[in-house]
């Protein structure tokens, strides 16, 4: 995986950008803590890097969808895990205003797709090939969707990618939007405990991927033409008859960041984290019950080569 080399590659990039002034070291840099563990890990690693550079860092809990006003106002300095698949219009509005600035990609290799807990393969043998769903739809049916199968889709405010796929591929499934991430997890959990069938729109990295042994359905690989040209792909009459495009995860910050804390800006822009690094830390927290601070501190100590160059390039 390319991410293993990212630290090194970045050091080179950061070197090109050159060292910068530290700026207002006495005022804390406020990093947003959103609602999911992966984001906590990402943010704490960045925070420790800033501390290593000599900054004060404050972690502020903030709702993922509500944080952008705060960033525009400078009440929060940066947020480090924005999923392109799940972001509010407010974000784009603020970017347009210029009050929130892009801090580049995080480098997390994210994936979204139509998924199922592994035990479902026994009930619908053709899986993970998507064609198998044509014949197994019946076993996924519930009271709300009968006679069609049920697909548990993202909460309505994240969009309806699952419903789009079902329509695109002509699969006899009705997409039911979940109300929240908690609802998605509860569905996965109940399905695993009861060994009942479940088809769900899901993403990785997520701790539940391994906890419930979630697998993705193989869909035709996505190309731009799939979303614009109905004749492309297995269904000649519809667009969206392919897999999800890969999701990019970016960082964003307050517009004043660059002037107030120039070196911190450099560090945050050049900061990357890979799935291979993040996922074990998530497991150590969610599955083994570790504390974010301790797990991150341990990783920082063991993987200095991955982050130290970014810090050094910015301050030296």
């Amino acid at each position, binding site marked *: 995986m390319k991410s293993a080399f990212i630290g090194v590659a970045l050091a080179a990039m950061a070197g090109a950008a050159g060292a910068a002034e530290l700026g207002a070291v006495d005022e804390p840099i406020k990093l947003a803590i959103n609602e999911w563990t992966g984001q906590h890990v990402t943010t704490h690693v960045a925070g420790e890097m800033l501390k290593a550079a000599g900054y004060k860092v404050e972690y502020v809990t903030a709702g993922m969808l*509500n944080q*952008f006003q705060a960033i525009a106002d400078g009440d929060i300095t940066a947020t480090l895990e924005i999923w392109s698949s799940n972001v*509010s219009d407010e974000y784009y509005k603020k970017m347009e205003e210029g009050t929130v600035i892009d801090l580049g990609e995080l480098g997390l290799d994210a994936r979204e797709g139509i998924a199922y807990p592994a035990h479902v393969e026994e009930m619908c043998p053709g899986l993970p090939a998507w064609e198998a769903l044509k014949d197994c739809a019946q076993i996924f049916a*519930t*009271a709300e969707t009968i*006679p069609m199968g049920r697909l548990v889709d993202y909460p309505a405010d994240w969009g309806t990618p699952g419903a789009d796929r079902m329509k695109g591929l002509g699969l006899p499934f009705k997409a039911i939007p979940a109300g929240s991430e908690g609802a998605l*997890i509860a*569905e996965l959990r109940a399905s695993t*405990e009861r060994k009942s069938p479940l088809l769900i729109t899901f993403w990785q990295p997520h701790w539940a991927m391994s906890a419930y042994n979630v697998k993705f359905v193989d869909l035709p690989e996505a190309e731009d033409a799939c979303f614009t040209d109905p004749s492309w792909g297995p269904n000649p009459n519809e667009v969206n008859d392919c897999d999800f495009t890969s999701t990019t995860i970016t960082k964003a910050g307050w517009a004043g960041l660059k002037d107030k804390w120039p070196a911190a800006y450099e560090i945050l822009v050049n900061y990357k984290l890979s799935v291979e690094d993040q996922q074990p830390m998530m497991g150590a927290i969610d599955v083994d019950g570790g504390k974010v601070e301790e797990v991150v501190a341990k990783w920082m100590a063991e993987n200095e080569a991955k982050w130290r160059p970014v810090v050094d390039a910015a301050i030296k």
Partner: protein
Amino acid sequence: MTTAADVLPSRLGLTPGTRAALVVLLTGALCLALEPVLPWLVKWPDAWTLPATQWVDTVTRWILGWLKPLARAFADLMRYPMDWANLALNATPWPVTIGLITALGWYLGGLRMAALGFLGLSFVLASGYWSESMNTLALVAVSVPLALIVGGAIGLLANEFPRLKPPVQAVLDVMQTVPTFAYLTPLLVLFGFGPVVGLIASAIYAAPPMARNVILGLERVESEIKEAAVMSGAGRLQQLFQVEVPSAASQIMVGVNQCLMAALSMVIIAAVIGGFNDIGWEVLLTMRKAQFGQSLLAGLVIVVFAVVIDRMSGALAIERRRHDPRVVYGVLALAAVLTALFWSRLPDPAEFTLLAPVAEAVDTGLGEFTAANGDWLAGVKNGAMFYVLLPLRIGLDQAVLPFTWGFAWTPGMSWAVFAAGAALCLILIWRGRVTAGLMVLIGAGMLETGIADLPWPFVLVGAAALGRIAGGWRLSLLAVGLMLTILLSGLWDRAMLSLYLSGVSVVACAVVGGFFGLWSAVSPMAWRIVQPICDMLQTIPLFVFLIPVLMFFQIGEFSAFLAICAYAVVPMIRYTRHGLVSTPPELMEAAIASGATGWQIMRDVRAPYAAPTILLGLNQTILYAFAMLVIAALIGTTGLGQSIYLALGKADVGLGISAGAAMAILAFLADRMVQGFAEERRRALGL
């Protein structure tokens, strides 16, 4: 309200109720008959809706931009007391805090209260959420005084200028019925990010009970007392603050108590924005992971606070007696000495994890239960969906399918339903119960069509008719006007879905809650079990229960229905019981003396006497059901609640406010109508 129409006997010899039912029935029949020719009669065409949500958005954003500097200054100001409260509560060593609460408990209510305070806070300590809890308390400690000042000022103002009372009542209604989620986005824009938004939101929600109780208390001050003050030559301010307010003190303390409880119930909502590492955030985090045991634990911490605060402020309101202050000093000294002695070895409160294994066990238990009982749980759900919820929502003609009922619905069956309804109607009319007969026929039509698909003229006329019966022409006009705004704003379909879901829940709550209320009234033993359950259901953040409901019944309407019922059933139980047990003893004695059996007394004396109280309970149940709709949207419903979440996610001020307003309109109308009926019953009983 009496109008000429009430006083004059109708020319047709029909009561107003019968006439109203007849008009509604005719409208419904007309709509059904004309549907093939005039489809717009049934479904309001999209082209006729106004871009009202966009207008609201533009106007609100303009006003917000204008208010922003002022609000920001206020937010900066509020940050100080917030930080102080936070610092004070977090810096105080935990043995001292526990000592303080225990001592306060003793002072207010003796040994029992002291034990409550001590055990309650010990539970919080053992849960490992000490510092989160202190952050929560800091929020409450600042928002409650704010709410008390605002609420008190509104109350005093309404008392001084009686002409202001009606508009003030309306404002208080709006503050309590518009779901908080709907105005979180504008608040964020106004006050900026951070705990101050949560603070303001909870103050908005907590101020009305204070205002209402201040108004009520001052109204009830006896005129002799007021006159005495006037005669002794006191100025108006002196009269108010030295005579009237002290005389109304006990009612005002009830307001303080209600204000505290309301502020605490908002903790979880404030957490949605974040900015504050509090116990509500902890509930949200664990809920996101579907960890029932852990979120239950965090939720119980809030319950403990609610119980301690409720009992202590309740004692403050009722009991005049204060307990020996020497014990207070003793407890405080003990706490201080203990802290000093173990200062260096005082464990960090975050290290207490005594209850973690319990939470773990509860969580595993839930998983095992789901695994073992999956089949019959699915059976229950399917039964309720196929035979009750679906037919009510989309009507028998669409809900009856070979997959669900085992056969397909034919037009002939529709006629059969109508014929049965008509036959029953005729029987009832023949027995002299014309209104009931017409209602049966209306009910048959609604069952056939489904609530979500009801033609809009039918709903409007129905609302007008109900308003007319419950509160006269003014309410009737108000109902039509407000419903029209929903229709024009394009939120009609969603509003009907919300109406259906909350309507079904209210009916279920009325039946189940009425039963438990009755049972608790006749058996004190039952009440002893039911009461703590009611207390818990009312104070625990309901997010917690979404997890087991979801695991048992999956995402969908049935889960949402259960979640709403769990919350909304409580007032029905409480008020039913309260109404039934408070029958005046003279009435009971008279009934016993005339040889009535227990059941006859219940049916002919206690139940009619309790009717107004029970109706008030129903009114509260309706308001609770609407309030819960937003939370139920987290399960995945498709009504107005979902719109509010969508708006929150997109920071769409217009949609949020419009959807919130639509929900408030439905709740408000339901409230006024039920209150109208209750008023009528009370008058009929001569109360």
